[in-house]
């Protein structure tokens, strides 16, 4: 099983549309995993059935038991996150501010504070509209995206891939350069970088590639909206050459990305033959690189 992870650093480059297109080209030979748990959008294109749902817990949260609390305020004194506040004369935990350090629990003399597991979201195992398997998740509002939920969906995806003998796991990676993207990339065989020829596109591509490099994962790049700025495009190509990143494809700006999305289709299903061909060729290039 080969694991292809699609990342972009910057939002709005077409990462999810391209991932979904690859997934629909791979059909039953792949498991699709959406690791963009903060703003998971791929389900809008692949329309999974949300058949199996599990709550996801991450980290801990302080809770004050009002029956045992003597209202001494020691907890509020030691909390560095201003997470213990007076409400109608009683100390309560502000759940959005609590980081779960547990200092309050340790100084509470009547032991009125307990640290409980924090509900941080949910993950789902589904069948997409093509009948392929998909694992996806939703992070709760204000929850910390530690990468643990990303690791969880990847693990579930891998289990399905090996049980059903799939050839590919195609992963829509997390944005940014922090822990979640590290978790998305961890264990990957190929990192597909999707970028656009803009100043911030190149800036973020360079930053995210630093992360890929640390993992020594084979990398390739699709430059989307390539005709938007030819000179910036050249700059990106130079960067790819310098870093020996495979230039998988340049895709010109195409309204079909949005149109297909509006029709809840992937771009490889959409009636735009030239675009479809570019994606098929991209997938072939990636497969060849992986020796499949």
């Amino acid at each position, binding site marked *: 099983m080969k694991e292809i992870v699609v990342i972009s650093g910057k939002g709005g480059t077409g990462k999810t549309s391209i991932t979904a297109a690859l997934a629909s080209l791979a059909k039953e030979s792949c498991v699709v995993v959406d690791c963009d748990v903060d703003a998971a959008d791929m389900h809008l294109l692949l329309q999974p059935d949300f058949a199996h749902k599990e709550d996801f817990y*991450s980290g801990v949260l302080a809770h004050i038991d009002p029956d045992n609390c003597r209202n001494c305020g020691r907890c509020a004194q030691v909390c560095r996150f201003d997470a213990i506040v007076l409400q109608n004369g009683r100390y309560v935990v502000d759940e959005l501010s609590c980081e779960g350090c547990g200092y309050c629990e340790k100084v509470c003399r009547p032991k009125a504070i307990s640290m409980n597991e924090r509900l941080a979201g949910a993950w789902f195992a589904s069948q997409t509209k093509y009948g392929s398997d998909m694992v996806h998740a939703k992070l709760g509002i204000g929850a*910390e995206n*530690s*990468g643990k939920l990303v690791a969880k969906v990847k693990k579930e995806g891998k289990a399905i891939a090996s049980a059903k003998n799939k050839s590919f796991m195609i992963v829509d990676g997390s944005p940014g350069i922090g822990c979640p993207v590290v978790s998305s990339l961890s*264990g990957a*065989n190929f990192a597909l970088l999707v970028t656009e020829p803009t100043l911030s596109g190149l800036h973020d591509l360079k930053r995210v590639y630093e992360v890929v490099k640390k*993992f*020594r994962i084979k990398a390739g790049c699709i430059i989307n909206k390539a005709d938007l700025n030819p000179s910036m495009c050249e700059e990106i190509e130079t960067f790819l050459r310098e870093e020996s990143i495979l230039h998988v494809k340049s895709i010109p700006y195409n309204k079909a990305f949005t149109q297909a999305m509006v029709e809840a289709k992937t771009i490889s299903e959409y009636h735009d033959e030239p675009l479809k061909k570019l994606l098929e060729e991209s997938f072939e290039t990636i497969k060849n690189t992986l020796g499949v």
Partner: protein
Amino acid sequence: MKIAFTTKEPSWDSMMEARFGRAEYVLIYDEQSGQIVFHDNREIVNQEHGAGPKMAKAMADLGVDVIITGNGPGENARAVLAQMNTVVYVGAGEMNVAEAYKAYQDGTLEKF
């Protein structure tokens, strides 16, 4: 030499796990005695943060001299391993344990 392999399953036939801190199992092979032990790392895997250094500490506590893995440990884990003079070889993420051991003996694995 005590050699640790990050693995997917607690078995000599297992595939290697490319990840270090979040590998579920570690197979430890003692070359002198020929003894094989399995270390269950699943508790560490469930930590939000800091799995790498915790795993590195576990390896140190078990007296491991060499670690063979896929991608290589992150910075924090590296600090612990450097302290303990543990040697790490990477690039074995897509092999099984036997292949990884052979590659290590042949000197074809990259030293981290």
